[in-house]
């Protein structure tokens, strides 16, 4: 019964994400067109002659009606073609390949830290409701959530990097980066180092991850603290918890198997909702720590006023957020048998 309905459920979710994608893409397209100046003169103005600019414009198809460009943009995105930058003629796909890995490991590391810190803290806070530890943890959650990334980064650099000597710039030491990238297979430097069996590089890359992941992780963990705390307080009051106690189930098991497990179900959904915010945070973290990821690339193309570069990367981000929301729904269905039947 449950086995048969899962694939159908997944298909449903995928179909539901299509309208969401459609809206996201439209917003990206419109925002970039209504921005002041036209793409070519904004990015290349002053460097090229009028004729050259017109030639470029024609080549890129930017002189055609918006609706034609829009349909083409949708079509290209559907085939995972994100276009090319205007200023330096890089294919966006190449940028994603070369820089996506750094953003990926940064966000995964940040999530591990956020979950690893947020879930236990939320649990401690709920178990000691309104005691001093609860108050301290809640205040910490709010502060970590509300403090701007660059400021956290600054604090990390001053109070952690100084005394410990942890690196605050880049994803690896330049020499190691060069060595590993020569034989890049996955273009995810951490994975490539492992594949090449270069353990010194693995260590170096991991050490470079510590502060950026902490910085981004702190931003997201406040949400987890709050979610786990609120949910656990609620499930501890639930009817099935009282019923389990009435059966004589040991209190530690009641908390763990009944209250805590049920409290985690909505947290999975939060991971999905956090995805967009985390990508935003990643962009800021990357520029704070000079991280060679997509966020840094995005900042670069924003500054260069390269509209095609910005559009390509943002479109990719939108796809990632949509994909994560589908994955989260599926994970949710695997954890919670009720979801599949709704």
């Amino acid at each position, binding site marked *: 019964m449950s086995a048969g309905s899962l694939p159908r459920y997944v298909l449903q979710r995928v179909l539901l994400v299509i309208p969401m994608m459609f809206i996201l893409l439209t917003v990206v397209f419109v925002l970039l067109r209504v921005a002041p100046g036209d793409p070519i003169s904004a990015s290349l103005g002053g460097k090229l002659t009028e004729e050259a600019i017109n030639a470029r414009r024609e080549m890129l198809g930017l002189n055609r009606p918006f609706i034609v460009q829009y349909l083409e943009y949708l079509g290209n995105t559907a085939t995972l073609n994100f276009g090319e930058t205007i200023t330096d003629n890089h294919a966006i796909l190449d940028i994603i390949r070369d820089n996506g890995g750094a953003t990926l490991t940064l966000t995964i590391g940040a999530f591990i830290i956020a979950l690893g810190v947020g879930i236990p803290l939320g649990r401690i806070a709920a178990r000691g409701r309104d005691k001093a530890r609860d108050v301290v943890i809640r205040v910490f959650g709010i502060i970590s959530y509300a403090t701007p990334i660059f400021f956290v980064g600054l604090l990390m650099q001053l109070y952690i990097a100084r005394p410990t000597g942890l690196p605050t710039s880049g994803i690896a030491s330049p020499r190691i980066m060069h060595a590993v990238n020569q034989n890049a297979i996955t273009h995810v430097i951490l994975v490539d180092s492992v594949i090449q069996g270069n353990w010194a590089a693995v260590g170096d890359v991991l050490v470079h991850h510590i502060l950026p992941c902490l910085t981004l992780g702190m931003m997201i963990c406040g949400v987890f603290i709050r979610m786990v705390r609120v949910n656990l307080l609620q499930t501890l009051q639930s009817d099935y918890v*009282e019923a389990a106690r*009435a*059966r*004589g189930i040991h209190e530690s098991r009641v908390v763990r198997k009944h209250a805590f497990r049920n409290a985690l179900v909505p947290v999975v959904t939060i991971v999905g909702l956090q995805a967009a915010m985390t990508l935003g945070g990643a962009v800021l973290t990357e520029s704070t720590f000079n991280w060679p990821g997509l966020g840094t690339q995005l900042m670069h193309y924003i500054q260069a006023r390269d509209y095609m570069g910005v559009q390509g990367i943002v479109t990719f981000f939108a796809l990632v957020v949509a994909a994560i929301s589908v994955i989260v729904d599926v994970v949710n269905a695997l954890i919670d*048998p009720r979801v599949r039947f709704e």
Partner: protein
Amino acid sequence: MSDPTIYAQHIRIWYGTPAGPVRAVDDVSFSIQNGEILGLVGESGSGKSTIGRGLLGLLPPGSVMDGELAFKGEDLLALDQKERFKRRGRDLAMIFQEPLTRLNPLMRVSEHFTETLRTHFPKISDAEVEKRSLDVLQVIGIPPSRWKAYPHEFSGGMRQRIMIALALVLRPAFVVADEPTTALDVLVEAQIIRILRDLAEQFDTALLLITHNLGIIAEACDRVAVMYAGKIVEIGDARDVFSDPQHPYTQELLRSTITLTTDGLHSIPGAPPDLIDPPSGCHFHPRCPKAMAHCAVAEPPVRNKRGGKPEPGTTDVACWINQLADVPEDARGPLERGEISVADEA
């Protein structure tokens, strides 16, 4: 005679609230023998569930219980937390009102049974767990094919059966069933009540059946206790109480049931009192059609219905009408309502 399964004397239970202590149960005494079903009836808020929770030691933090409580002659209130915990489920079980929310939605039926049996019998094998559980489920009408199903795959009535099986699989000597059928339709209600009655008969289980449905009491219970505002106002053989109710509250309850048939409890004029600051004298006097002046002043003790000491087998009642000899001559006249409401407002 051997010790009763449950012997409760002068039980009092308070809940701590910001507005002050709620006297949810106020000097309640009763006992239940093996195989006996005691019905506990009363308006909602009268303290029925609180008694059930108190018997199992399931009261929330901030509440206080005192009095005397023995299970087969063993003083339960003298036990430490851990020992008390061990009795729960194995000796004293509870079935709740809302079957839909009482099973963990993430756990299969099989996992519920495994967890319950393993907690009390850590060495039991998987095969033994399955055998014992399926035996009970079968009796209760859940086919073995549903062993691995999740709670949401069952109807309310089926889930209540599972809850009952989950209580019975440990073979407890005492079960509290707290409004076990209130959330179910009439047909399922009849089936569940039959299951509970058979249970008391076949396994000699003592049962405290909490309900606000007098029909259920008449059908299933040997004895009945009528509760009002934290007190038992009348307790005795169910047939005797129904055919010859003593307390004016019992009489009102029966009357409203007869005239309205469905859920007529609320047709008694007035509302149950505030348990933080209950009325003086008899708690029922503000709503009592037969109240005397004395009723607002002094609380009636529990006497058997002829006015003598309560004894096993007698119907006991806490009402001055049954103890007129103890009421001063000049306080026997009807209660002046006006004075009371003025006094209440003061």
